[in-house]
């Protein structure tokens, strides 16, 4: 009798203890569109997740699902995470926008963070990075480095985010090299090494000696390496394994500080729905080490531009800028407003070709 009651008390105590531990832990979920080993977009988001684990140790538990198709599958994965007790869920692809809003409606107590979208709710924040600032630095190096004056650009999807990057890179390449020409290939994928490699090869055959990419794999780097005398830039991730040639620099997405801050906000109860769009200054966009393949004066120029973008003394879209169709966009010294940038669906003057419709 005594023994059983003792056991019961012990079991009860143990049960309470586990419950308490479970309560203490903040559970953070991540939904990824690609594999964590893509070396680019998803890889960096996953690094952010690992940083959260490192920062908070035992106080957090993180879970993730990779290769989640946009649409109903993503909705199910998010619901599953919420059902399993996630307190905060990061959904890291544009196509998760409507599913995130749908699931957030069903779980008002779970906080959601959607990357690169524009739909907010009481428990849905949106966040993205001003990658176009990095593109400005890239464009400067590209314009200085090209000998054929042809810069190849692998576009993923013709959405404002990508168009913005093309425009920013072009404006700054043109500034340092008036003869520069951009050749753009749309891959219609974020991650497809075979397609990306093909695109890079075609661009190189057309005379491009600089390849910029808005896709996530390292395949274009490998293609450039095989061709020789072609330079590239790491995308989303540093891709430093391809340095010092062909990779001469990179744009690095650094989500770690943001993920840590948002997790901390959930922990102390200060989380509110926000819209974040940070750039080089806040550290969300990093410029990877500029390799020795770049002459010292070009490197200096690029770093000066980076510093000006970081402290806000220069905006990547500063007038006078004319649209491709010849109509005026920004007057002398005028800078672009975020609304126009967010929905950018036009090329600036000088870029050839049309945005696929």
């Amino acid at each position: 009798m005594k023994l059983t009651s003792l056991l019961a008390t012990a079991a009860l105590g143990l049960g309470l203890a586990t419950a308490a531990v479970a309560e203490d832990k903040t559970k953070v979920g991540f939904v990824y569109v690609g594999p964590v080993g893509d070396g680019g977009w998803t890889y960096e988001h996953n690094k952010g997740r690992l940083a959260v684990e490192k920062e908070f140790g035992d106080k957090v538990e993180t879970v993730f699902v990779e290769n989640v198709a946009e649409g109903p599958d993503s909705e199910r994965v998010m619901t599953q995470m919420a059902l399993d007790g996630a307190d905060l869920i990061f959904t890291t692809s544009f196509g998760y926008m409507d599913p995130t809003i749908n699931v957030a409606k069903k779980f008002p107590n779970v906080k959601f963070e959607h990357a690169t979208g524009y739909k907010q709710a009481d428990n849905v924040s949106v966040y993205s990075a001003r990658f176009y600032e990095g593109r400005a630095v890239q464009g400067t190096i590209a314009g200085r480095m090209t000998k054929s004056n042809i810069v190849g650009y692998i576009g993923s999807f013709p959405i404002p985010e990508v168009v913005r990057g093309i425009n920013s890179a072009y404006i700054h390449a043109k500034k340092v090299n008036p003869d520069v020409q951009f050749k753009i290939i749309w891959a219609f994928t974020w991650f497809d090494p075979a397609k990306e490699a093909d695109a890079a090869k075609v661009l190189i055959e057309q005379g491009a000696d600089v390849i910029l990419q808005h896709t996530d794999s390292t395949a274009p780097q490998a293609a450039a390496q095989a061709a020789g005398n072609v330079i590239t830039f790491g995308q989303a991730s540093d891709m430093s394994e391809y340095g010092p040639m062909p990779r001469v620099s990179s744009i690095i997405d650094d989500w770690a500080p943001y993920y840590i801050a948002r997790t901390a906000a959930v922990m102390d109860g200060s989380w509110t729905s926000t819209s974040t769009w940070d750039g080089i200054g806040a550290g969300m966009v990093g410029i990877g080490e500029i390799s020795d393949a770049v002459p010292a004066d070009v490197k200096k120029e690029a770093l000066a531009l980076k510093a000006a973008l970081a402290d806000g003394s220069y905006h990547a879209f500063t007038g006078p800028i004319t649209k491709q169709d010849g109509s005026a966009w920004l007057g002398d010294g005028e800078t672009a407003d975020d609304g126009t940038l967010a929905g950018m669906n036009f090329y600036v003057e000088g870029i050839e070709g049309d945005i696929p419709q």
Partner: protein
Amino acid sequence: MIVLEKRPQPSQAWSMATPAVAVLATMVFGGVLFAALGKNPIEAIQTIFWEPLFGEHASYYRPQLLIKGAPLVLIAIGLSLGFKAGIWNIGAEGQYIMGAIVGAGVGLAFYPLEAWYIFPLMIMGGALGGWFWAMIPALLKVKFGTNEILVSLMLVYVAEQLLASMSLGLLKNPQGYGFPGSRNLQSYDSAHNAELFAGTGMHWGVVAALIAVIFAYVLLNRHMLGFHIRLTGEAPRAAKFAGVHPSRLILFCLGTSGMLAGLAGLFEVAGPAGQITIDFNVGYGFTAIIVAFLGRLHPVGILLAGGVMALTYIGGDIAQSKLGLPASAIQVFQGMLLFFLLALDLLTNYRIRAARKEVA
């Protein structure tokens, strides 16, 4: 020594048993794979097969099985008719896309009008879109003898390009801030393929899949056309003598499978997916090929196979997030299923015998 001996008659028993044995073998070898990855194999298998059906949150997952399984079954039923007759439609994915584009296009053309007839018109649009896309390989085969496998497969990539173009151009949401993708049909009542009873996962696509199973069953077992289909597949020469028109059969089989794939696309875009986007298609058209074979090209078998396949998808995602299994391990696991099925198929036509050692 072990030798294979051809059976005089394909074994009925093995034909019925192989899918179940294949699932079991997949569990065993999948378990070994998961163990090699340092996970508890029993827990992993249990998470994949048990959790969605009877786990803590089964009330949410069970309806999801219907949502995930319905398009697979609907497409696989259509494919099985052709496969039985030796007509290989590999391009259901493209027909699925076309059904979605045409169906959603019909609905969006009426926006913002609310009327009862919009959804039925969309269904017709979806069926026609898929049918039309399948008619291309069908007519080319009938008129010029082209290979329907290649033509239908290549047309998938054409359909994908068209999908991208639609998401970026004609069907783009005018209020979408320049982002690709159509309006969300979930917020357009007349076009929304909503759940018939909230929380059950039962939408018109599930109903259509069940009807398709019944029709296919009746067609194959009680109808002359079904007999012709089976005869053509099993004994092409005999079929000719029996007066089967190969051309008509090709048009019927490809047309029907295209139509069902198109319907699946329409129900998906108007319901669970909600909108036309560049990445709208997620491979149902290809997975349905596995489902058709896993189900032994039999309507009831396909219904069960669709359920098993949906289960591995949903359970696989749960295993990823709960146990940290990589997505690729889940894909290998699903691949094993088809592999074992095909391998064990050998036993339907052959028997394994221990032969006596003979001196040479």
